[in-house]
């Protein structure tokens, strides 16, 4: 088993170096269909996106396709909307990830301690992540937060909060709350897996040696689950950066542009404004931002795989 694992990543090069050409092709052949498929449907469109981003083209205007140089990009720099969208994307992603990691950690620790009905708790806890995001957003907006008929304004009214119209008065906070509801279970699952890989005897030994729970947490538990937290945060941010469903359902990017993030702006420009060139330029910017995030994510993923391999 251990030999096999080490072949996984890195060892491939040496193993493959000595094989003959024909053998190399029989090895590569099963890989090709998937490779070609993914290449055709992601790389070629991406190259086209870059190409279109240098053109001005309104889909509704016949013959409006013409070279525009860097116009689409200079417009991005001068345009208020894109700056708002980038800022909203950053605020949304950072707050959702930070809050759901903290809550996920707390819930994971609860589920890892001695409690009654762990299994059922875990089962119920993952439900928000499984519920269709569009369905979840609608339920929050229309049945829980609706100022007239919703449950939450009703329950909060004795506390002097009145019938607050959460979605319209605090649009970004509402989107963050609904996304946190959805992503906390995700973080919880990953962190719980980390906690469960911990040897309870080590914690017990620390306790016997006189460490208080806080010290034990900081010195033993936290370092152990750190890679799991990083993995969850980075995978999560790659998904949350692309948030579209809940914004579409809850606020439709509004009021004004208060909750318009990059994916939603792209949707507005491409499918409401039909500005193909401008939408493509936004696409290129989105890719650059994602590459920055993803580079870190992938490094973490690979390092975890290597830890696995060493075991």
């Amino acid at each position, binding site marked *: 088993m251990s030999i096999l694992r080490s072949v996984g990543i890195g060892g491939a090069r040496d193993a493959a170096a000595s094989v003959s050409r024909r053998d190399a092709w029989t090895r590569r052949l099963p890989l090709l269909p998937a490779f070609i498929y993914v290449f055709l449907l992601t790389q070629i469109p991406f190259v086209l996106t870059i190409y279109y981003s240098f053109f001005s083209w309104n889909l509704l205007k016949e013959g409006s396709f013409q070279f525009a140089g860097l116009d689409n990009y200079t417009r991005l720099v001068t345009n208020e909307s894109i700056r708002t969208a980038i800022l909203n994307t950053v605020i949304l992603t950072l707050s959702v990830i930070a809050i759901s990691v903290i809550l996920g950690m707390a819930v994971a620790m609860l589920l890892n301690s001695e409690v009654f009905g762990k299994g059922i*708790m875990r089962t119920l806890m993952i439900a928000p992540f499984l519920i269709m995001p569009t369905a979840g957003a609608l339920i929050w907006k229309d049945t829980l937060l609706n100022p007239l008929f919703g449950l939450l304004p009703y329950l909060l009214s004795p506390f002097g909060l009145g019938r607050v119209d959460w979605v319209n008065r605090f649009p970004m906070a509402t989107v963050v709350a609904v996304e946190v509801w959805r992503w906390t279970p995700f973080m919880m699952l990953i962190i719980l897996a980390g906690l469960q890989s911990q040897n309870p005897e080590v914690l017990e030994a620390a306790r016997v040696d006189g460490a208080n729970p806080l010290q034990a947490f900081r010195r033993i538990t936290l370092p152990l689950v750190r890679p799991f937290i990083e993995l969850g945060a980075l995978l999560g941010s790659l998904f949350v950066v692309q948030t579209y469903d809940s914004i579409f359902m809850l606020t439709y990017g509004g009021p004004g542009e208060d909750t318009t993030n990059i994916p939603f702006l792209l949707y507005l420009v491409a499918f409401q404004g039909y500005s*193909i060139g401008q939408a493509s330029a936004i696409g290129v910017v989105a890719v650059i931002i994602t590459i920055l995030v993803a580079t870190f994510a992938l490094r973490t993923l690979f390092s975890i795989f290597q830890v696995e391999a060493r075991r």
Partner: protein
Amino acid sequence: MRTVDAPLRSKVLWSVVGWLVVFVFFFPVIWMWLEGLKTEPQAASSPPTIFFVPTLMEFQEVLGGDFPPFFINSAIASIVSTLLVLVLGLPAAYALAIRPVKRTQDVLFFFISTRFLPFAASLVPLYLLARDLSLLDNILALILIYTTINLPLGVWLLRSFLLEIPHDLFEAARVDGAAFRHEILRIVVPLIAPGLAATSLICLIFSWNEFFYAVNFTSSTAATAPIFLVSFISGRGLFYAKLAAAATLASLPVLLAGWIAQKQLIRGLTMGAVK
């Protein structure tokens, strides 16, 4: 006595805290179910109706109305794209795990980088292509796109399961002169049945819940379940009970699949990194 009681007391205390937290998170789901079991006047009442006689009226209304075609489209798009992922992904994962090629790591990196390429990167050309091939509002477009989204994940996940199969098994099969296709069908498939299940589950979750492409690439004929829910935000007035019933039904397949295959969920979501 004290020494016996203290752990029990702390267990009870933390259980109460834990159940409260879980209740808060699960409550919106309960509320969705409850709203779906109400009548329209009960669902749109102020103060909200807490005690009522449940009725399946709204569920019948949704199922007897225009919802089923959306549901069927979702099922077709999810199931066919998942099968495509398995058919294309298993040989690729096999090549990367059992018979590693030169640059295995690069290929893995390529696959996963495409998974996290934002849809912004390829949206416009894909839309234009779909339009030119008259694939807009055609379920085939969604099937092809969902396969693209899930294939990189499938390759990684299947590979992580394949790495767990003892290498000797393949050596033995090769010595016996088993052909490649034989090797895959007779040895690999039975051994990684849990891997196939995990991969299918993750693909089903992502494609069933997918919204961006669904809402922009389809309009009526090929529209999927989440698109049915969109109709509730525009111009249907106060249909909260019906909305909740539809939301419950639309969420049901993924919720059940996720609950049944809980153990595979974590592994799938992290592409095999966490077991």
